[in-house]
């Protein structure tokens, strides 16, 4: 048989691979540089108390960002996830006093259901996810405002059902943050060891090919949004626990930093490339940035500007221009 085609010699390919590896290591390099810069400006930055505060503020952002990672991997985006989490804190404030632990479970179930409905609508009707979830954002933030009377509700009775999350410490570090990082590790390992673990990636890269290979693209899409809903619920629990209250806009300011954490960690906004550990790095960058900004005297009200800029910059740097045709 005549050999059909010739591939490039292996050498330049290896070189390309190195470049790819360097690019994927950029977020980690950035994080280390950021820590060094902040530490130089504020030598007690790495003290236990400071690190504890850092991790505590990271936990809800990372939870939201992990949920969003599933959706972004499939090539979609869930814009309703922070509003859903805010709604969740309101539900917690209303249900915990009477139901206790059962209320906690009910809230998580409700959040998961909200994610499922988002996914179901998007996968079945093929509406662009940002439109569907923009609608959902209005829906759930409105619902939260309505049932809370547009004000924060203090959680006193039944608080013990969630309070343990912020109270427990391991080696002086908050249990919450450690748990969330553990969850991220579990996700990363699952994507590695499960036979269908790359399904989210595959859909983000080539939905048609997955479909024509007998993969249930509808089911995988729904699963991504369902997981995003569940993680919004977990973030709601963590926020309500640290604030001792529920509020209709409690999680809203986390929308931008959470999305920024996903994309700056190296998960491509076009889908298909990325993972949970990248999002952990991204979330760390975001919280260190936040501390660093206040250390150099930037007022907190400017933070959102930085997150917005970070999202755009990260996407510009990571987007694969050869696939621009599929950007939604």
């Amino acid at each position: 048989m005549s050999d059909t085609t010739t591939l490039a010699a292996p050498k330049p390919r290896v070189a390309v691979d190195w470049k790819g590896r360097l690019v994927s290591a950029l977020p980690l390099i950035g994080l280390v540089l950021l820590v060094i810069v902040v530490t130089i400006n504020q030598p007690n930055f790495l003290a236990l108390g400071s690190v504890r505060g850092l991790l505590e503020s990271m936990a809800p952002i990372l939870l939201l960002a992990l949920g969003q990672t599933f959706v972004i991997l499939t090539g979609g985006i869930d814009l309703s996830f922070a509003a859903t989490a805010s709604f969740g804190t309101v539900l917690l404030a209303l249900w915990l006093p009477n139901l206790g632990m059962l209320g906690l479970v009910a809230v998580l179930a409700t959040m998961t259901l909200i994610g499922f409905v988002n996914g179901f609508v998007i996968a079945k009707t093929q509406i662009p996810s940002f439109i569907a979830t923009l609608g959902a954002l209005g829906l759930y933030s409105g619902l939260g405002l309505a049932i809370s009377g547009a004000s924060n509700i203090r959680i006193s009775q039944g608080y013990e059902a969630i309070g343990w999350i912020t109270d427990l410490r391991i080696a002086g570090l908050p249990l919450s943050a450690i748990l969330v990082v553990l969850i991220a590790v579990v996700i990363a390992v699952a994507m590695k060891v499960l036979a269908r673990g790359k399904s989210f990636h595959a859909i983000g890269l080539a939905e048609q090919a997955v479909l024509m290979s007998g993969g249930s693209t509808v089911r995988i899409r729904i699963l991504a949004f369902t997981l995003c809903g569940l993680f919004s619920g977990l973030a709601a629990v963590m926020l309500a626990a640290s604030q001792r209250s529920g509020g209709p806009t409690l999680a809203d300011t986390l929308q931008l930093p959470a999305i920024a954490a996903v994309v700056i960690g190296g998960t491509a906004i076009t889908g298909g490339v990325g993972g949970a550990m990248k999002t952990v790095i991204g979330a760390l960058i975001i919280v260190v940035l936040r501390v660093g900004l206040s250390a150099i005297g930037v007022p907190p009200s400017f933070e959102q500007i930085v997150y917005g800029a970070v999202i755009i910059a990260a996407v510009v740097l990571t987007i694969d221009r050869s696939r621009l045709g599929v950007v939604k």
Partner: protein
Amino acid sequence: MSVPVLEVKNLTKTFKNVVALDNITFEVRKHEVVGLIGENGAGKSTLLKILSGIYQPDSGEVLRNGVKTVFRGPQDSAKAGIGMVHQEQSLVTSVSVAENILLGSETDAVRAGFFNWGKLNAKAQKQLDKIQSPISPKEKVENLSFAQRQMVELAKALGVEEFSKEAPVIVLDEPSSVLEGEELEVLFTQIERLRQFASVIFVSHRLDEVLRVSDRVYVLKDGKSVAERNPDTADVDELHRLMVGRESSAEFYHEDEQLAVDGAPVVLKVDGLRKNNAFSDVSFEVRKGEVLGIAGVQGSGREELTRVIFGAEPFDGGSITLDGKKVRFSSPVGAVSAGFGYIPAERRIEGIAQGLSVQDNIFLADPSPVSVGPFLLPAKARTVASEWITRLRIRTPDRNANVANLSGGNQQKVVLAKWLNSPRLRVLILDHPTRGLDVGAKEDVYTFVRQLCSQGISIILLADTLEETIALSHSIFVMRDGQIQRRFDASPGNKPKPVDLVEQMV
């Protein structure tokens, strides 16, 4: 001897890693019809795209009447008097013949953005008169038959005469592939007429026709011009040998490896299948190890039929029976778990998952052979993936390489491996499995088809060419306008001729 009207010298063109044209040299003389033959992937289309200014050659030159010319785009080529009649018709069907003929060269037929219809129609009529066509310039293209549309394309190509003082060179890219009988005669008459005032490059893989109309024939193979022949002394067999580089087509298609399937059990039975606006009353059976070829032109309904069987599209009536059990799939998910596989024509979109590695692509449809429950066995996955790469001779740096970086033929082998890897596979649908592959990769695909049959897998084949359909299939049916027009036995030693099929297709 006078200067050739068009001369190509040492033209070379490579795409990434594939050499498409390798030092090609040929010439076209005044009032001459030059035949250009070669298999898919031999370099014909690349050569034509260079002549029409779509591609730039890496090296070599094009001379027009002895003057070196560079075509930076289709307009340069038109200005030099080279007119193209494309293989896939490029007419806008919703507007008139005149608008199509003058598309992009309306000049003074457009004033302030408005058509001057009288002028437009007159200009179009002038081109139509050159080929003495009775088609009215006012007619909408959508009301014309395929053959009539081709005449419009020809008239449009002749429009290049308006830009150039030189006698035009008209390139006909596979003009005869869907024509038959009288329509074919009309085409040949037109070519004779063109000869009076122009030169013609006639590209085809129908060798008898090339021999009939050409003054000289060039044979392309693997990007090289391997021979130049005089039709008076050459015959079809010789050209075929030169084209494929093998003694006979039977050998190319591994016909001696085709097994009889007369007594084999029926695996798939389709009964009265109907999809509105696509096809109706389609019934057939496929036996174990049988290849069923479905022939038909675009719009015959055969593509829709296979997509319906695979569950990618719904159907409106009739039934599909697999191993005696009625099945109805709402999506390919069910079809794949029941044992169907599908090798799509849109390989880069529906076949491979670009961005995933070769290994991940191989296990995309069914990871069960390399997993326990939901868990992947990494060591086994590595071994099995490497085995497939060796067995199918997939040329890749390693199993973790991004499948998007492989050549078309190797990507197709990855898609094949994806289905062969599945122990559930019973029926494999091949939709243009050799489209865009070079000769060697094609032959590999044919080999795998024979191997699959001997393993008892049934195949439904929508082939690129009739020759391929006939050689690979045990039985064939021709579809036309959504109906089965006729069935043919194509068992070993009983092969129908391409012309028999064509008669039923159009």
